[in-house]
């Protein structure tokens, strides 16, 4: 990666968060991973203190998002990110247990870049995350405008 990309992981299940982090690390990605366990904190961080997202200007962000959060749905966060002029260029990877086709369609319509369903089978799960890590290691992320 040409510049330090911060991976923002919004995942309420700490076990999942741990497994994701482990597998990303295993694939050789050493970027900073900022974990959030609820939507409110994540949104607060993303939009910054002034609520405009200006704080992240010039930073490269990659968002890993779970749809089922205790305080809001991931779709709300996705909307917020994609409607914010500073954040909208940040790639959003949705990693969730929901495999409802309507939901998937909706996420892509709202501008999500990758949609991954968490497989229960750990081999597949670990494999998917590692692939994602490889993807992260080659992806070009633009800095927030």
């Amino acid at each position, binding site marked *: 990666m040409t510049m330090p990309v911060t991976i923002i992981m919004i995942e309420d299940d700490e076990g999942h968060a741990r*497994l994701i982090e482990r597998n990303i690390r295993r694939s050789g990605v050493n970027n900073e991973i900022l974990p959030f366990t609820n939507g409110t904190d994540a949104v607060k961080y993303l939009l910054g203190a002034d609520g405009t997202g200006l704080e992240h200007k010039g930073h490269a962000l990659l968002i890993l998002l779970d749809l089922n959060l205790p305080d809001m749905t991931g779709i709300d966060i996705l909307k917020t990110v994609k409607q914010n002029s500073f954040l909208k260029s940040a790639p959003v990877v949705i990693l969730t247990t929901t495999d409802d086709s309507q939901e998937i369609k909706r996420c892509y319509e709202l501008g999500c870049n990758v949609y991954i369903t968490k497989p229960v089978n750990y081999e597949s799960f670990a494999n998917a995350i590692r692939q994602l890590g490889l993807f992260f290691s080659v992806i070009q992320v633009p800095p927030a405008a």
Partner: protein
Amino acid sequence: MAPEARRRRTLGQILLLSAGFLVLVAVSTSSVLLVNKARSDNAWVVHTIEAENQINALLLEVRRAKSGARAYLLTQEQEFLRDHEAAVAAVGPVLDKLSALVADNPRQVENLARLRNVIETRLSQFGREKALVASGDLPGAVALVRGAGSAESSALIGTTAEAMRTEEERLFALRTANADASQQLATMVTIAGSALVIVLAIISVVLVRRSARARDEAEVRLRESNLNLETTVDERTADLREANEEIQRFAYIVSHDLRSPLVNIMGFTSELDELRNDVFRRIATLARAASSSPPPAEGAEPELEGADRQLSDDFSEALGFIKSSIAKMDRLITAILNLTREGRREFSPVRIDMRELIEAVASTLAHQAAEANATIRVEPLPILVSDRLALEQIFSNLIDNAIKYLKPGVPGEIVVRARTKLGFAIFEIADNGRGIDPKDHHRIFDLFRRAGTQDRPGQGIGLAHVRALVRRLGGTMSVASELDQGSTFTITLPINWKASNRNSER
């Protein structure tokens, strides 16, 4: 209206009609009888007048005979004698006629007998007078005429005839009155009968109108109660639909949320597996170091020995059970998710040529059928208006089951046929497979339940899913089967299904 009252009313109308008819018959009969009576009464009146006429004629003839006799006595001319003779000759027939006329009345018969006697006495007096005149004894004849005898018999003729006339007049009056009475009676009977018929007709009309009104009211009530019923049914349906949706949502959320912890359990179990490998590798290395045996070749796994090996195997076994259980749980959760997703899918009725649809289903299953040595025969099928995807799932599940559960060693034969009845199409999917024990017929439609030898992969979802779909399409399904006798699944579906029937609010 209570059925009792309705029956009574109908009975009343029938009775009324019969009564009217009876009255008509009675009126007609009595009219005929009374007219006949009036005619005979009139005949009797005429009869009386005739009798009176004859009496008068008789008296006339007697007078003619008398005046003829007198004239002959005065003039001794033969012309008057002939007159007299003619009158006397006429008296006999007139008397006979009269006696025939009055034969019915004993009093007149008696009178007539007396009259006949008197007339005969008088005629014999005439005879004697004529004899005296003929013998030239004119004074003798005159004396005879002047004598008390002739005057007496003449007076007697007068009184007797008068008596008869009086009698006939009495009869005349009587019979005229009779005739009048019967005519009046006939008129009255006719009028009364007609009046009765009219009254009955009016009552009948009133009753008919009343029952028509009652019917109209009942119709209105029926319509109202129908409306009420529909509203009630709609309310209940809405309630049920709500409850059903609640369950669907519940099932969806539960199965969905069960998945998250399952990912963790599976994930960390696998991590544990990795840890186990590390731990036992280390134990093996340490054990080997302790026993100072030569180190293993580079890259080779250190071997465990004795109790350590046993421990490792136990560990593996436990982890294996956990993993397979998790895998099973995941399959079940996925199945529930798919079912609830199907339950939430909106159905859209379209026109479907069932034969085409089932042949398409059969062709997608052709490979499996060929492997199982089975043939699928599709008989002519009707055209339905229904949801295409649901029908495809129903029939592909059933045909797939038929292929899956064939009798080993027997070429499979699967037939799809249908008939239509009262707006419903009845489909039958029959096979010659291994069949289903009748005690399992209910069980096979339950979620996650299966029957018979468990030698085929499956979750026990297909038939539960099929039945749910059939129900949503407004149909029913059943199975007829015996062990080793093949199975026949019967599905009844409405030919013209409308989405509003069941899932308009989905």
